[in-house]
């Protein structure tokens, strides 16, 4: 379970995120969408405990991120759009490193399964410098999934993956959700969001523009006479801009 109450992040006087509140229940996949600079990455990094919010409260699996950060972070995984890897650890050593950090038991049995799931078995002894961009992304994903997090935060997870990798990644996300993980997925790929997200949070300039299931959001704009999320999304963003002018 991920709970966000009144999240606000200021950079100087500039509000990157304002008054954001929502919950993601176990088994749910929340899609976070919006134009560039909408505040998606700031939101997701705040929930991951990387950025310190200016105001508001975040709880992960019942643990307050501000007062009990270690327990909260132990329950979550953050997979960024740019894989951050240690250049002198091999693929397998990355996973052993993560296993120790998150106190994962039975790691010798889990690693081969995970490497197989992400098609990395052949590269288990390779250093990151020997991996392609997509493989690095898969390794970052494997590191995020090893400790079976109850909350999963994905920022543009499909960047750099090939078609097979994309299909596998989508299946992995669905499988984790089915196993009871609460997932937040930030992406510009609306077809991906439509395919795997149970609810949608559309942001613009740090504020919520729309929040609900895809059907609810599409239904909120009957005037458009469309059932396509892309049209509704563009209209919502345009509407927001128009109202602020």
């Amino acid at each position, binding site marked *: 379970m991920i709970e966000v109450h009144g999240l606000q992040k200021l*950079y100087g006087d500039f509000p990157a995120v304002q008054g954001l509140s929502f919950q993601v229940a176990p088994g749910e996949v929340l899609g976070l969408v919006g134009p560039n600079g909408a505040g998606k990455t*700031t939101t997701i*990094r705040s929930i*991951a*405990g*990387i*950025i*310190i919010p200016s105001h508001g409260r975040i709880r992960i699996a019942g643990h307050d991120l501000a007062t009990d*950060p*270690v*327990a*909260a*972070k*132990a329950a979550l995984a*953050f997979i*960024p759009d*740019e894989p*951050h890897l*240690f*250049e*002198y*650890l*091999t693929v397998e*050593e990355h996973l*052993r*490193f*993560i*296993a*120790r*950090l*998150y*106190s*994962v*038991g*039975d*790691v010798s049995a889990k690693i081969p399964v995970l490497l197989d799931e992400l098609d990395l078995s052949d590269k288990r*002894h*390779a*250093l990151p410098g*020997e991996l392609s961009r997509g493989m690095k992304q898969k390794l970052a994903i494997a590191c995020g999934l090893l400790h079976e997090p109850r909350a999963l935060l994905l920022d543009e997870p499909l960047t750099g993956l090939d078609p097979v990798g994309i299909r596998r990644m989508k299946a992995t996300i669905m499988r984790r959700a089915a196993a009871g993980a609460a997932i937040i997925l930030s992406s510009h790929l609306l077809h991906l969001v439509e395919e795997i997200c149970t609810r949608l949070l559309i942001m613009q300039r740090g504020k919520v523009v729309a929040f609900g299931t895809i059907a609810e959001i599409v239904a909120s704009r009957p005037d458009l006479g469309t059932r396509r999320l892309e049209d509704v999304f563009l209209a919502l963003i345009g509407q927001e801009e128009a109202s602020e002018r």
Partner: protein
Amino acid sequence: MIRVFGYLAWRSTRNRLARQLRHLRSPRYAAALLLGLAYLWFMVVAQRPASSATNLADARWLELVGALALLGAVAWGWIFGVERRVLAFSPAEVTFLFSGPVSRRGLIQFKLLHSQLLILFNALLWTLILSRERFGASPWLRVVSIWVLLTTLSFHRLGASFVRTSLAEHGRLGARHRIVSLGVLGVVLIALTWSIADALPRIVEARADSPFSFLAAVGEAASQPLPTALTYPFRLMVRPLTAHTLADWLDALWPALILMMLHYIWVVRSDSAFEEAAAQVSLRRARALSENPRRLASVLPASTTPPLFRLAPSGWPASAILWKNLVAVTRKRRVRNAALALAMAGAVVTVLSFEPHGTLAGIAGWLLVFWGASLIVLGPQWVRNDLRGDLPKLDLLRSYPLAGWSVVLAEVAASTLLLTAIQLSLLVIGYLAFLGNDSMYPGLEARTLALAAAFLFLPGINLLGMLIQNGAALLYPGWVRLGSGRAGGVEALGQNFLMMVAFIALLVGVLALPVAISGGAFLLLRRGIDGWAALPAATLAFLVMAYEAALLVGWLGRVFERTDPASAGIGG
């Protein structure tokens, strides 16, 4: 094209400076700037200049000492090599310039000229640092003299690293392209060996008399024809600094400028040869592979070596960071080879120490002890497998389920362990070098106790030193260089010197209490147990240092938890 390069260099420097200055809005940075300015004022203005200008004899000594120091720096570059960091292109430069209509030689010249900004800044710093020393003609002329000196030295180290890289990567083919450089190097090496062998007995004899006799013997040895010829280029580089009048300075400057230009030509031509050699080797390798694909494994570099120890899945979670940093060191450096070399050196000096005079072992022993001791100051700046290397990945570190103090402790533990291991190895070999020397003062028992005490207090000193360095990186990430490499080379000598002086001041501050307590304990206990008092005193020092370190770790842990990657301008 020069205008494009000029635009890129100027705008990048200006914007970088503006970004650094923006940090001053934070009170922490503003306070640091005020402290820094006060420190410079103290060094430059408040200190009285030396009462009289140096005389001619002093100038000759300065020239000799300077030339010998440069010879040492150049020899270090040839033996241990330097990275071609001057030619390290950023990803953006690779993307835009390498694919653009720019010749390879043009790119190299651009980078060399770009490095001039840093050299000029450091020449100004050195002029400030040396402003109270009244040698040389005037501060303005000194800036030019230092600039010529640093630029020549920078070019030389770059050229040396080309030769080393070429030999390492291309073997005989690289040697063929380096025939002139290698020929000059060979002649210099022979002359150097000859000179040292010739002068050493007299210098060793004079050392036994008095320090003045020792200096006189060094001066006399340096004035012999061969050493004079050997140090001549280095004297040319130093001479403008010691000139007293404008006319003397002008006379001294033009040979130094010619030397600098010769180095420039050497570097630019060297790199072209390097490229050609690289191309030929690539061609030969491709041909070999097309004939026999199974040779692929033999021509590709070995990717990994197994870690020194395997990480167990259970235990203190933050120890994973310690393990990671130690694995990185073993992958970057050939630790096993180094350990083997140290063991062999220990065996050799032990045997040599039992020789009748043991002169060679004695010199080696003092050098090793001096080296080990100097690492107390230099080591924490040199060994950086800690938070300084990991802060660019702050996003990742902060997402881990670890308390701030445990991250800080695990990070500094890795570099502390490595530095302490290096230091103790040097001290042990130094100790072995004196093992057979019965006439030496202090005696064997005292030396053994001192070594045992070093095992107790060095980890504490190094831990505090590493905490100071890591604390600086955590508190001032916008001003401290992050990543595995520090600003190095002669280009950054001035700023590194200032940083080192500030570091020493802080280290002395944190060591004052443990030194006072353990010193008092030593004096008290010595009455009863003689030199053995060193051991409880060292233990006490370690405990006090551990307490100080615990306080610092706790504080830096809270700083880590409060550090916002976006506001600090680091991380993803």
